[in-house]
């Protein structure tokens, strides 16, 4: 409710007095999710979810299986199977829900997938260059792109040969996740949603991936880390932690909340079983 009011005020400022850019910019830099209801195959999974992720902050969303974590990630990115039945999502002054997936991406949103699709025959490098050019007004030169790619691969301790492999085909679980973070690093979005990026990673891979994300943390990037376990949050320490149960955010706090959840589990929030799935 508080955010609603703030946004209404800011909205009216935006309309009536464009001479107050600071306030407007701050508002626009926030991914604002309000009363979001999402159904999959006519089963409601998200039931009025509110969440705000300003640029420059790392938020963690934690919840048990079936609470709607991945549903949120895919609904934000516009997966056609996830039907938004009510609510709104705004980013940079745009009604995100009115945009197709590719436009959301070009607006500055990024989803690191839990299960990235394999695209045989498409090399990591050529794919990334095309994706980068899709969001630029001028095409990046082959040499500049190569330099950028190598710099980011180095950040993630990736073998340069990786760039010539076919996208996700035959990748191990760890390689897939690393490749997702590589794309995050190259495409430089303003809001990144990491959907269970820790799943399937051994401790070394987890550390490398987390180090990569930490190095990308900046005032220009807002991050939503979606995870089942607290483990990832030992490496990517969030500014805020939210708990999702049955499609709603039921609790928020600082990083201490994640530690408490690890110790006490989700039972404190009552019945956490859900009809839907992640």
């Amino acid at each position, binding site marked *: 409710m508080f955010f609603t009011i703030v946004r209404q005020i800011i909205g009216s400022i935006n309309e009536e007095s464009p001479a107050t850019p600071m306030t407007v910019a701050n508002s626009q830099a926030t991914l604002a999710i309000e009363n979001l209801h999402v159904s999959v195959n006519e089963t409601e999974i998200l039931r009025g979810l509110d969440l705000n992720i300003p640029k420059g902050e790392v938020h963690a969303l934690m919840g048990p299986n079936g609470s709607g974590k991945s549903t949120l990630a895919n609904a934000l*990115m*516009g*997966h*056609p199977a996830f039907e938004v039945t009510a609510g709104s999502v705004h980013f940079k002054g745009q009604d995100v829900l009115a945009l*197709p*997936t*590719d436009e*959301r*991406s*070009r607006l500055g949103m*990024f*989803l690191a*997938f839990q299960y*990235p*699709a*394999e*695209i*045989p*025959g*498409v*090399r990591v490098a050529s*794919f990334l260059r*095309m*994706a980068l050019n*899709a*969001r630029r007004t001028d095409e990046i030169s082959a040499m500049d792109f190569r330099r950028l790619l190598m710099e980011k691969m180095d950040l993630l301790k990736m073998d340069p040969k990786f760039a010539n492999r*076919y*996208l996700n085909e035959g990748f191990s679980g760890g390689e897939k996740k690393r490749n997702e973070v590589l*794309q995050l690093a190259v*495409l430089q979005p303003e809001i990144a949603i990491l959907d269970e990026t820790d799943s399937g990673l051994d401790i070394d891979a987890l550390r490398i991936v987390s180090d990569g994300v930490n190095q990308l943390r900046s005032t220009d990037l807002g991050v939503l880390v979606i995870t089942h376990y607290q483990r990832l949050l030992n490496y990517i320490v969030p500014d805020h932690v939210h708990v999702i149960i049955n499609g709603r955010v039921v609790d928020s706090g600082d990083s201490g909340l994640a530690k408490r959840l690890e110790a006490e589990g989700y039972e404190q929030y009552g019945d956490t079983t859900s009809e839907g799935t992640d």
Partner: protein
Amino acid sequence: MTPLTAEETIAAQAKTRSEPAWLADRRIDAWRTFESSPPPKRSDEEWRRTDLSWMNWSDFHPSASQLTNGSAEEHLPVHLSAASIVLVEHGTGTTVTRVAPEAKAAGITAASLSTAASDSNQLVESHLATSLIRPDDGKFQALNSALWTGGVFVHIPRGVQLEAPIVILKTSNDSACYPRTLIIADPESSGHIVEWWLPEDSKSLSFANGSTEIFVNDNADLTYTHVQQWPSITRSLLSQHAQVARDASLVSTNVTLGGLFHKGSIKATLSDPGANVKLNGISYLDGQQFVDHHTSQDHKTTDAVSDLLYVNILDDTSRSVYAGTILVEQDAQRSNAYQQNRNLMLGSGPRADSIPRLEIMADDVRCTHGATTSTVDPAQLYYLNSRGLNRDDARTMIINGTIEPVLDRIPSTVVADAVRTALQEKIQSTSSN
């Protein structure tokens, strides 16, 4: 004056071209075989899925037309601009338009087949239509053996290694043409040969019946690429047969983009131990195009490797048939043979039939085959969309991803790039419809 019979016409034309007696005799024999052999029947396995009802067998006769050579190198694909030798085959005649000094110095022959035969080239007499593609192989092979004109002969002498490709540009402004190609790579030689059917200057071509024979001798290393961009009215039948000898290797690629109806019989015989063959195919079909590829990997002796990858991309109501046989003969122990056919359907209109077949008479072999047919996967589209690619670009990327593993198998970068560009043109033309 009584009109000449077909045989008399063939003899007269052979004389006009100054062809030797043995060739005129072979042509007449081939014509007799054509006339006496039965047409393919739908009950034959090879023709079961191929409709030849449009064919009027009595239409065929030796044509007396003498056409001028068409435009030459102006249509050379840009990536092949560094070709060492360029020949232009234009229906009835073949002209050599470029020979790089190093190709000339190395003693490479690249010429009109008819001229090479007239020049008493012993290799032509001993290899042409005597073993790999013979008139008695079938009615179409007989027809081609009788009526081919111009033709192409390429001979790479022993030990000569040529990196820049030899390019044969082909057009025909007649309504029918009978291209014939003979390629001989001597021991320890290597080269890249490209036959490219251009869409230009072939507007009225309604029927094409071609034969290509390829001999890859001991330790030779040959790349052969055939690109077909016929106009939308062309119906074509093409036979290719390669023989690959001891420790020799061949990468053969067929790219089918044009035409209304195309039937390709592609055969590789691995005649000696150590032979290594890659057979590649890419067909990109739209409208009502029909393409039927029958392939055969014939392992005659031990320790040879064959690896086939044929990919079909089908749009609109196009149709493909892929039928491939791996034949491992009794003495061909320790053969390795692979065969893979992938079909990508761009919609619900097209149809692809895939018929892989293994005939294995030896007991110590490794053979695998597989076929997949898929549509553009929504999960892949979503993934690419989520990275900012719009629907069309994402779809094109997935199509290219299906093709790229085949292009990866072409050893010459410039040839692969030329093929890639031709494919992009076709993808652009279909997606803009």
